[in-house]
């Protein structure tokens, strides 16, 4: 009994320690003010002063930073631009990832393992190095243009454009889209396709009426798994998008490291979490419990 209750609360302890506690820290930071100090914010909690210390600390917290976020268009623009990158990126990923996962799931079982390995293989090198590699490929005198020149074609300037950001996003997140899709497609009973064909459905009809609807949980999981981190993505827009690309991740970075405005950086993070990630996760959980119940 005791063991079971421990096992039951273990995940909550984990969430408390590694999610809720940091979240509260960041939330508190976002309510503080910037200060020329080390660390660069005020107020500081003075536990030595006892209850009076805590009271004065709480009194000093305010929503000023959030008001600043609302009044400065920079934040809204980077928020919307991040949303756009993540949304378009997710759609492109679905369009590429679904056929890939479908093809893999219809492969003879022996070949499937090799294909799965090939999808996972990039994880064995550092993410940062892989994105830098794209810089080397896309830069004006890079591999791509060298190849185009060799073929007698005009050079392309892709680096530091939105195209480069999409390229990087799709490249980096493809495994996260392919794997959940592959998992649902591979599990699907092949006799369902036979039954659909038997009842007069052409292969295309069978796909749209049977395979695709049944794979929806995989589509949702893949989309969520890609969309959420892409909203906050920093490295890819920073390295491939150039200085003109505004995203939440870059704004956050600039506030934190360049402006040393920790409260503003925290507020950006909190806004993102509350308006986007939390509702999405909640919706997804509700959908899956509904699916399980029906």
């Amino acid at each position, binding site marked *: 009994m005791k063991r079971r209750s421990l096992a039951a609360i273990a995940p909550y302890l984990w969430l408390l320690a590694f999610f809720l506690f940091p979240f509260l820290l960041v939330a508190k930071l976002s309510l503080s003010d910037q200060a020329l100090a080390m660390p660069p914010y005020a107020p500081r909690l003075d536990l030595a002063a006892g209850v009076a210390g805590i009271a004065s600390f709480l009194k000093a917290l305010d929503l000023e930073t959030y008001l600043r976020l609302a009044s400065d268009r920079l934040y809204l623009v980077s928020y919307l631009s991040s949303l756009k990158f993540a949304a378009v990126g997710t759609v492109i990923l679905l369009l590429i990832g679904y056929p890939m996962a479908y093809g893999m799931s219809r492969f003879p079982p022996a070949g499937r393992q090799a294909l799965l390995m090939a999808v996972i293989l990039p994880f064995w090198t550092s993410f940062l190095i892989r994105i830098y590699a794209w810089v080397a490929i896309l830069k004006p005198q890079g591999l791509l243009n060298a190849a185009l020149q060799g073929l007698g074609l005009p050079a392309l300037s892709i680096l530091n454009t939105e195209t480069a950001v999409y390229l990087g996003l799709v490249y980096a997140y493809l495994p996260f889209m392919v794997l959940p899709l592959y998992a649902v497609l591979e599990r699907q*009973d092949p*006799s*369902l396709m*036979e*039954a*659909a*064909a*038997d*009842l*007069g*459905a*052409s*292969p295309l*009809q*069978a796909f749209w*009426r*049977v395979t695709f*609807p*049944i794979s*929806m949980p995989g589509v949702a999981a893949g989309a969520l798994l890609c969309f959420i981190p892409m909203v906050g993505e920093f490295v890819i827009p920073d390295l491939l998008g150039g200085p003109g690309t505004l995203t939440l991740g870059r704004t956050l970075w600039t506030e934190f490291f360049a402006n040393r405005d920790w409260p503003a950086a925290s507020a950006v993070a909190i806004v993102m979490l509350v308006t986007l990630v939390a509702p999405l996760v909640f919706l997804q959980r509700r959908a899956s419990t509904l699916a399980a119940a*029906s």
Partner: protein
Amino acid sequence: MTSRQSLGAVRSSFAPWADPTATPLVRFEAVTKRFGAETAVKSVSLDIYEREFFALLGPSGCGKTTLMRMLAGFETPDEGRVTLEGQDLAGLPPHQRPLHMMFQSYALFPHLSVERNIAFGLQRQGLAKAEISDRVAEMLALVRLEGLARRKPDQLSGGQRQRVALARALAPRPKVLLLDEPLGALDRKLREETQFELMALQQRLGMTFLVVTHDQEEAMVMADRIAVMRAGEIVQTGPPPEVYEAPNCRYVADFIGEVNLFEGQVETADGRLVRLSSPVCPQGLEAAEDDPLPKSAAAWFAVRPEKMVLHPTPPPPGPNLMQGKVADIGYLGDWTTYVVEVAGGQTVRAARANAARVVENPVDWGDTVWLTFARDAAVVLSR
């Protein structure tokens, strides 16, 4: 009751296989299918006629499903060909074949409700909405699932799923319906009712049924003809009474119903009567048989338990008489089966109808009894 009788009248005059001018609807011509080294179907030739109710009977793994899948288009024959209305089906994809199959694994669409599963084939035919919902309702009533129309397959019991699969295959009213173990998961009463409803429906809609079953009683009740399969081959094809009363080998005799097999050596076979010498019968075994058999060849007499006559007191000596001890008694209500151990340790089954409530000559465990059978009750088998 009336519909059943008229059904019988239609049935008894239905015998297109005996008509040399009739052309079969479905034709397997020397079809062979191999999976790797294993041959699942060996050179099977089979004709199925329009409006026929044809049953495939055989033990597990004998190739029944494979044979069906070749007709439905999910497997390609390695040799031979399959034709429908004289047209070779080779190369025609499954969705263009005008026949439907009920899968042994049901293969219900998990994301669709019962009614939308049943409507699937109707929608592919492009029927009007109103007609689709009428047909779905009709099918739901047929399989007694009216209350469960909106459930998903994983909310149904095994027998309910089987009925949905049956309704889904039936709904588009295909020319030929292939049913792979359609009633296996139903309880006895529901199964019997569904059997008669299937037969009535098949008559009413003029469909041709090819049914796979393990259950020989079911095959006997429903089918116009039965094909008995063994290890990828068809051993015998014929109407139920023929297969039951005139099996062509020991395998069929044993597979369809219960049978006593008496082995012996041919003493005489004059074209009217066959005489065997056998250890179980001191005075020999005799049966009416037109076909001559070579002298001293091994032969078997197959006698059904209900054709064995049990005598509590010794009858006058003669052929087909054996003496033994009652080893077991199975009381079935309408019938009682006696298991009698005769000379040589062979056990023989004899069934007696319980015509009166009180058995006049009670036979008990361990009693010595005598068994006989008439000359025309035995089937002579040479293999």
